[in-house]
């Protein structure tokens, strides 16, 4: 009966209850506005990003299906995941501050007997207003961002009038997406609160944090080892500039900062009394809030490092990458075989002196797995397919494109155990290994078409480990297949002769000797595969050049199916590649790379600023109490401001110093991994310098502004 009465009462429209909700929101408008800004940013960036993707991907050859392994969508998904992570961290941080202020009010209402449904109504109304406002503003901001970036992209890429269009459903989908992030962040925050009391702990005025724990010296040593290992490994080409190494570096930095600071401060407190007491107030926070201070310090370092290096270097390396035309010395590259004699003869007779055709002997070289994968298991790996050539052919190719032949002595052996690699990619692409599965530093290579059914447990007969005597990054024949395939493997001339005949002795499906295949399976499949690397250049300056290119392309396209030796095993590996579409792809990919990384840089800078502001806001109550206390003790305003200024500046100075040191180490590593020539490396370093200076200046101005605002809020300007 009572329950029915309650339900009837709840259904009544109570205008005063709405007034209470609205007035509470208005009272906490600063936190509400901050939350709206965070959500608005997510909507705006996701909206403008997806519109940019749609207009750019229309011109990219690989964008038939979304989430294709090559192309723009991969970069957008990758960026999207990073954005998602940043968005969740940001919303959780702001929510902690927002709810930190609201929780005392909710608790009071709970004590006064607010029902669960009214509590939910209150929370949903507030959340709903924030969400609607953020989405509404985000629509216009996102539109503005998109227009700016479209102008930038079309100027750079030159696709004005040829760009694709975007769907009208984009915004509704983004609304759902942002609602999902909002909900997910709220759920995660509830979990964190249940486990770590992250909100309610902000209500406590005193928090006890130990300066030193056990094994501080040991942790410091571990931190140093982690950082050193991470930096050294980052410079190795086969580690693919792994984000896990960066994670290891960050973890090491945290250990170094926490343990190092603890040891130094303990030493000062115990052994240098005079120094300790002279700076008692200035360093007080470092002593009693050391864990929190270090966490924030490392967090700001990580955010600035991501801006300046992880995303910033991508922009810089893309901006300083080779001109696209230099990556494609030929108009067509064909992975041909003996049956293509007639076709090539036909081409020569048809176009005579208008085209120049070069033929080089080659073998197909397969790697076990061409893609970095997180999961292992029954899923079949797509093997990489590379171009195997002899040492002589390598030198001829170099000479043909007038490139300086640095590798005079390659130290290759007659058994084929030693190889030289040419990674055909441009400078904007991360350095990467050729073989992802078995041996990153020592690739396991198979001579012949991919042996799709080979026995993984018995790879020594099929995918033989090779030692890399040297490698280079650059284009000899053309950067096709987005650096995962059609790279060049150089063997010694002697071994190459043997390799050319390997197909006769090897079963193509199992990768084992033909006799073994016959005895195990009753039959053997023999496929010769490609034997010739054919490079076609159409003379420039002739009439109807474009039409000629089109006709040749159509002619070669007709032969595609005949060159699928093992069915459509990998659609990205083809019989022929044309440079025109590859150039268009690279141009749009570079534009996307700059666009996405710029977005991410802006997003992370904003996240950094918001977290900094929120951190100051959460500590304000404590600062005000301390301010009153110190004023009553007779400390001058100038001294009190100095104490606060030093505390705030710690969050600028220490992350900056660590970041600069880390930048030097990692820049050196990445320039080595990507084998940048000296002149280009200098340009990159200069551009990075400008970027770092800009970011640090912006951050400094912001920190100064925040200091001014919060010192005023804490009453430090008031001497009464």
């Amino acid at each position, binding site marked *: 009966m*009572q329950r029915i009465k*309650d339900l009837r*009462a*709840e259904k*009544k429209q*109570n*205008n*005063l*209850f709405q*007034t*209470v909700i609205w*007035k*509470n929101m*208005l*009272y*906490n408008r600063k936190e509400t506005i901050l939350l709206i800004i965070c959500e608005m940013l997510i909507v705006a960036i996701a909206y403008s990003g997806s519109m940019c993707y749609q207009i750019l991907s229309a011109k990219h050859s690989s964008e038939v299906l979304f989430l294709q392994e090559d192309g723009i969508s991969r970069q957008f998904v990758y960026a999207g995941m990073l954005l998602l992570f940043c968005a969740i961290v940001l919303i959780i941080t702001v929510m902690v501050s927002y709810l930190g202020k609201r929780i005392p*009010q909710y608790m*009071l*209402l*709970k*004590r*006064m*007997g*607010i*029902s*669960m*449904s*009214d509590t939910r109504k209150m929370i949903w109304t507030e959340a709903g207003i924030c969400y609607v406002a953020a989405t509404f503003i985000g629509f216009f901001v996102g539109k503005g961002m998109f227009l700016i970036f479209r102008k930038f992209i079309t100027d750079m890429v030159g696709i004005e009038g040829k760009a694709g269009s975007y769907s009208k459903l984009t915004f509704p989908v983004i609304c759902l997406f942002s609602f999902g992030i909002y909900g997910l962040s709220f759920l995660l925050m509830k979990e964190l609160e249940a486990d770590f009391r992250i909100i309610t702990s902000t209500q406590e005025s005193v928090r006890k944090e130990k300066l030193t724990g056990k094994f501080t010296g040991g942790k410091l040593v571990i931190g140093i080892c982690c950082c050193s290992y991470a930096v050294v490994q980052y410079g190795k080409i086969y580690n693919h500039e792994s984000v896990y190494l960066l994670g290891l570096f960050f973890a090491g930095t945290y250990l170094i900062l926490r343990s190092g600071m603890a040891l130094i401060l303990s030493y000062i407190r115990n052994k240098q009394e005079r120094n300790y007491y002279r700076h008692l107030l200035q360093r007080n926070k470092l002593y009693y809030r050391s864990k929190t201070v270090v966490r924030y310090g490392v967090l700001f370092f990580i955010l600035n490092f991501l801006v300046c290096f992880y995303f910033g270097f991508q922009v810089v390396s893309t901006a300083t990458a080779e001109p696209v035309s230099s990556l494609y010395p030929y108009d067509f590259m064909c992975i041909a075989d003996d049956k293509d004699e007639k076709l090539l003869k036909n081409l020569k007779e048809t176009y005579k002196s208008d085209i120049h055709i070069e033929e080089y002997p080659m073998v197909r070289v397969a790697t076990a797995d061409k893609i970095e994968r997180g999961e292992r298991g029954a899923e079949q790996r797509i093997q990489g397919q590379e171009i195997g050539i002899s040492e002589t052919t390598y030198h001829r190719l170099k000479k043909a494109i007038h490139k300086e032949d640095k590798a005079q002595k390659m130290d290759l052996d007659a058994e084929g155990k030693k190889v030289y690699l040419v990674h055909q990619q441009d400078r904007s692409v991360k350095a990467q290994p050729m073989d992802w599965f078995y041996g990153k530093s020592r690739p396991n290579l198979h001579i012949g078409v991919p042996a799709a059914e080979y026995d993984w447990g018995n790879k020594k007969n099929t995918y033989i480990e090779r030692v890399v005597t040297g490698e280079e990054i650059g284009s000899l024949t053309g950067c096709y297949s987005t650096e995962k395939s059609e790279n060049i493997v150089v063997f010694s001339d002697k071994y190459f002769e043997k390799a050319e005949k390997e197909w006769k002795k090897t079963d193509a499906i199992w990768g084992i000797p033909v006799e073994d295949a016959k005895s195990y399976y009753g039959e053997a499949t023999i496929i010769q595969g490609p034997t010739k690397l054919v490079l076609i250049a159409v003379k420039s300056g002739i009439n109807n050049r474009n039409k000629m290119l089109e006709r040749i392309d159509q002619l070669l396209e007709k032969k595609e199916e005949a060159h699928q030796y093992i069915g459509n095993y990998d659609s990205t590996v083809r019989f022929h590649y044309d440079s025109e579409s590859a150039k268009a792809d690279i141009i749009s990919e570079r534009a996307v790379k700059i666009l996405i990384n710029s977005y991410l840089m802006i997003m992370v800078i904003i996240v950094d600023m918001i977290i900094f502001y929120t951190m100051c806001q959460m500590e304000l109550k404590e600062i005000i109490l301390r301010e009153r206390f110190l004023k009553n003790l007779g400390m001058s305003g100038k001294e009190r401001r100095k104490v606060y200024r030093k505390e705030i500046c710690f969050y600028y100075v220490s992350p900056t110093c660590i970041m600069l040191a880390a930048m030097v180490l990692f820049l050196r590593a990445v320039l080595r991994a990507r084998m940048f020539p000296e002149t280009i490396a200098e340009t990159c370093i200069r551009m990075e310098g400008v970027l770092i200076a800009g970011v640090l200046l912006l951050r400094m101005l912001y920190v100064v502004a925040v200091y001014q605002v919060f010192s005023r809020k804490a009453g430090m300007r008031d001497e009464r």
Partner: protein
Amino acid sequence: MKDNVLLRTENMSRKYVISDRRETEIEVLKDINLEIREQEFISIMGKSGSGKTTLLKLLGLIDRPTSGKLYFKGVDSEELRGDRLARIRRQDMGFVYQDYYLLDSLSVFENIMLPMILDHKDDKVCKEEAEKLAVSFQIQNLLGKYPYELSGGEKQRTAICRALVNQPDVIFADEPTGNLDSRSTEIVMDVFSTIHSKMHKTIIMVTHDISVAEYSERILYIEDGKITEDR
């Protein structure tokens, strides 16, 4: 009726666990056996850290005992959860705190009406009742103001009006005069006396001030978590 037992405890205890390395347990209240009847005016006195505020919180159903029993109007407190508990807090109890705990975002008028708003009473009824109480406690000219504009005594009278607006059976007061000067203390304690004598409400008040405790008809002394005297 004065003979009806409003609150009863049986060997009620409360322990807290401090989360340091050794997980130290502190027993704040030990085996409290107590009966509080309707229309009683009780003061709970004791030194700082004796457990008086903890006792008040347990009796006010804000906290739960770690052992023993607590009955409110004959109902075991363990059975009082969720919306049922919320209703009791809204309709049967009123709270007055040392720090007033008024919502700064709401005016005095809205703060007084708040329990009725949460109880989904009609807007007109809310306003009428709030005005009536404000007149009784002589704060009718403050209705349009906000808490930060009031003095301590005015805030506390506002808080008392809020505690009374839903006609609760019992008022819990935690050091209601702790932040007030002597003049305001006198005014507030006169108000409590009026609530007790004329409105026949049960009042359970925590105080460390004997002069304030003397307004009540029964004083409980707590020391080290135990009731040492009941007079």
